[in-house]
């Protein structure tokens, strides 16, 4: 079965153990997974690029391959003992790449044969001297170039829409669904619906709306909170519509721009969700201050490196934003019908700053505060978690644990900004400060100093 704890060695079985001697056919090791018993050889770049490595000792003629040299030597009519290759040459050899930054430089990632390492070196670290004349592709290894030239432009499939394919099945699949085909044939009547689609299940018109609609706010709201269920799409869209304007207001707020980078980044969607939530219960006048408070909060939590404005690279932010987003979405999930209504606890005019202070007060009653509870969101839907003071953080973490020294996720969040640029105002807002939690100070300071041993056993026990 899958031996998943053996890192890196899960394979078809011919890697971790040496192949048994009884196998007649020579087993071919896969690229990058060499035989552990093999001898590792490192050749110089010059040797790898050289073409005639094997030289006949009789006539000094050079050959690219050893077997060619042997064939040639036969022609010299050498006496028997000189004809034989030395027997100690049987040992398996693997070759490493001389380029230090290459992954195949490491002996455990050596390649199995000389031709392979030569080709690899030329391909990856060599100059591309061979150019295809039909297309613009360049190759460093001649055999690659030859192989490409054979197929370049030969098997080409062109769809009516203009797209080119060099593989038949991708062409066929594309063609079947291409608009060009749909227009070519008349509208069909042979689809047999088993029954007229009921309103509950048929795709309602708003469904295509998110993909075409320019407003990313709506799209993000839809996608964040919903399953693949059309009804939810309808409902969310309808209730989200009135908030689209406030969503736009949010996007224009300069403080939030670093979070709304990219039209479909997670950061924008999560902050827009929050905007929508707050918008329904606040006037747009206090919006600016709210967003300011939240942006401080997000900055405090979020990771330090502000990623460029592309969706995927904002993953460092969503790491913590995910915390906040969860809360917003928990409203969707737990509040049932109240999709966009903010939980009733805070009065509409409360700014984010005030909310956090209130959370700090609430939290002071309990043994600790979690940021999550501090946002006042938990109180609306999960009252049991508020009543258990000892387990408050634990249920705040959704783990159902007994909390220990008051450390926990807040330290994760506080510890990080302390290192990467502390925002003292935010820390104070949470009512925790640096000295508030005595027991956890040590943990916090160690975190700040970055001292953390990772490579050793964590729990003093070998968890594996």
């Amino acid at each position, binding site marked *: 079965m*899958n031996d998943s704890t053996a*890192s*890196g060695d899960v394979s*078809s079985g011919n890697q971790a153990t040496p192949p048994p001697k009884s196998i007649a056919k020579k087993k071919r090791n896969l690229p990058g997974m060499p035989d552990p018993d093999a001898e590792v050889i490192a050749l110089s770049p010059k040797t790898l690029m050289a073409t005639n490595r094997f030289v006949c000792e009789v006539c000094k003629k050079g050959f690219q391959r050893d077997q060619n040299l042997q064939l040639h030597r036969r022609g010299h009519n050498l006496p028997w003992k000189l004809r034989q290759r030395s027997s100690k040459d049987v040992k398996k050899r693997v070759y490493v790449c001389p380029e230090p*930054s290459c992954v195949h430089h490491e002996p455990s990632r050596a390649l199995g044969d000389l031709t392979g390492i030569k080709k690899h070196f030329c391909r990856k670290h060599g100059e591309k001297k061979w150019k295809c004349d039909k297309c613009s592709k360049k190759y460093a290894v001649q055999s690659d170039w030859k192989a490409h030239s054979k197929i370049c432009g030969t098997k080409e499939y062109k769809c009516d829409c203009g797209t080119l394919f060099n*593989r038949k*099945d*991708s062409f066929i*699949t*594309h*063609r*079947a*669904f*291409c*608009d060009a*085909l749909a227009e070519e*044939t008349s509208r*069909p009547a042979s*689809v*047999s619906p*088993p029954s007229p689609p009921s309103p*509950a*299940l048929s*795709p309602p018109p708003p*469904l295509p709306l998110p993909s075409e609609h320019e407003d990313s706010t709506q799209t993000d709201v839809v996608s964040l909170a*919903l*399953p*693949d269920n059309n*009804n939810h799409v309808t409902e969310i869209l309808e209730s989200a519509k009135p908030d689209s304007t406030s969503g736009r207001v949010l996007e224009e707020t300069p403080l939030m721009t670093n979070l709304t980078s990219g039209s479909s*980044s997670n950061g924008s969607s*999560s902050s827009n969700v929050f905007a929508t939530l707050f918008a329904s219960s606040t006037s747009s006048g206090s919006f600016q201050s709210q967003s300011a408070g939240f942006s401080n909060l997000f900055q405090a939590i979020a*990771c330090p490196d502000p990623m460029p404005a592309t969706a995927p690279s*904002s*993953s*460092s932010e*969503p*790491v913590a934003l*995910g*915390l906040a987003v*969860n809360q917003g979405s928990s409203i969707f999930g*737990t509040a049932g019908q109240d999709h966009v209504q903010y939980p009733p606890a805070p009065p509409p005019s409360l700014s984010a700053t005030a909310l956090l202070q209130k959370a700090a007060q609430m939290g002071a009653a309990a043994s600790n505060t979690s940021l999550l509870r501090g946002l006042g*969101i938990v109180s609306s*839907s999960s009252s049991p978690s508020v009543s258990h003071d000892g387990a408050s953080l634990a249920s705040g973490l959704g783990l159902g*644990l007994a*909390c220990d*020294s008051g450390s926990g*996720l807040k330290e*994760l969040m506080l510890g990080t900004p302390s290192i*990467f640029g502390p925002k003292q105002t935010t820390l104070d807002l949470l009512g925790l400060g640096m000295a508030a939690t005595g027991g956890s100070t040590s*943990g916090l300071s*160690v*975190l700040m*100093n*970055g001292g*953390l*041993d*990772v490579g050793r056993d*964590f729990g*003093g026990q070998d968890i*594996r």
Partner: protein
Amino acid sequence: MKADVRGKNPSPTISSMQNPSLFTNSRSSISGAVLTGCLSSLDGACIEKLLLHCGSALESNDVTLAQQVMWVLNNVASAVGDPNQRLASYFLRALVSRASRVCPATMSFKAAGIPHRRLMSVTELAGYVDLIPWHRFGFCASNNAILDAVRGFRKIHILDLSITHCMQWPTLIDALGKEPECPPVELRISVLSWRPPTPPLLNIPIEKVGQRLVNFARYRDVPFEFNVIKVGGPVEEEETVVSSSFYDFLLSQLNATIVKVNVDEALVVNIQNWLRYLPDEETSLSDSSCDGIMSYRDSFLELVGRLSPCLVTVVDEDCDLGAQSGLASRIVSCFNYMWIPFDAFETFLPKDSPQRIEYESDIGHKIENIVGYEGAQRIERLESEGRLCRRMAAAGFMSVPFGEETVKEVKALLDEHASGWGMKKDEEGMLVLTWKGHNAVYAGAWVPYAPAFHQNNLLV
């Protein structure tokens, strides 16, 4: 193969531990090794260890340890780094959302901080499934096996249970169009109106997809019919989690009448990346026809057997992440499995390629579910090849090895792709797609044992 993170500069504030003794935790006995040293030579094995420790910590409710590890992972992970870093960033996201969840019981798994799941157009999806042979392998193997099995039949009915919105069928329709038989073979494809809520997501309903297939079949002169079997969404509208009552409902709906099994048709049940969404927790089901404990997955397979198909093709991902696995082992298995597609992308797509990023975030979505949730909300319950074979056998199926032609076709397909993809055939006749030797996706074909096996349950 875990790539080395070379030359990665740890944050300048990470220096040697100043006060190791302060770092007292009843469980940990942290020795004096320096974090800098670990980070500078961080590779997949190290990340795996970190994830394992985090998982164990969450399992054993060690909150402190968990957040410490997450902090370290946060420094390592990067959505634009090498495959290990990218993968780690998705894992970290899932772990953080898990640890910070407030109300686990009623959360939708989609509501966590995952990127916006874009709805693709149907042509984009066509490109998506052909980016790497991950899906095409299963399509090719299954389609060829289907063509072999239905030879001689005049009518074919395929019950398609998959997550790729019928991307498999154009090549089959095309192959049928090429057959020089007259009159041509009639094809009918049925899909369910419900689909597991997982990427890839399409911006048009399945009915429209079917319409395009009908168009295409007409173009290829293949008599074709497309049905959508209404099984309803989750029973309550507010329920974003598929509950067990839905599965009960689903199973009760899948009988010969609703599926419209005709005796003059060759019935094929094609299950592609779908079986893993059926719960495999063993519960005693009140209406199960056999005594003993069965899971929904087992019940479903029995049900399929009762339909008397002439072939059942199953394609799925070769990893064990089912109900029985604990969090820590699941995290490790998932990490060691998901690096396969990440590594494949690294090989031939640039770091900022939008297709690659989309594919990776779809995988991130799965990771989010696998790592971040438990119980009914964890819908991605992958099962390895071996376990599936045993399950099929227990459900009354015997395996049908793939023919030589099929093997040749699949090999030809893989030759057209990047050179790390390979294939192996195991002794049961299943085909497995491999990347650099690691098992990725398996494809298998089965037939039920003699109809007498299911005699008393025929045609409910």
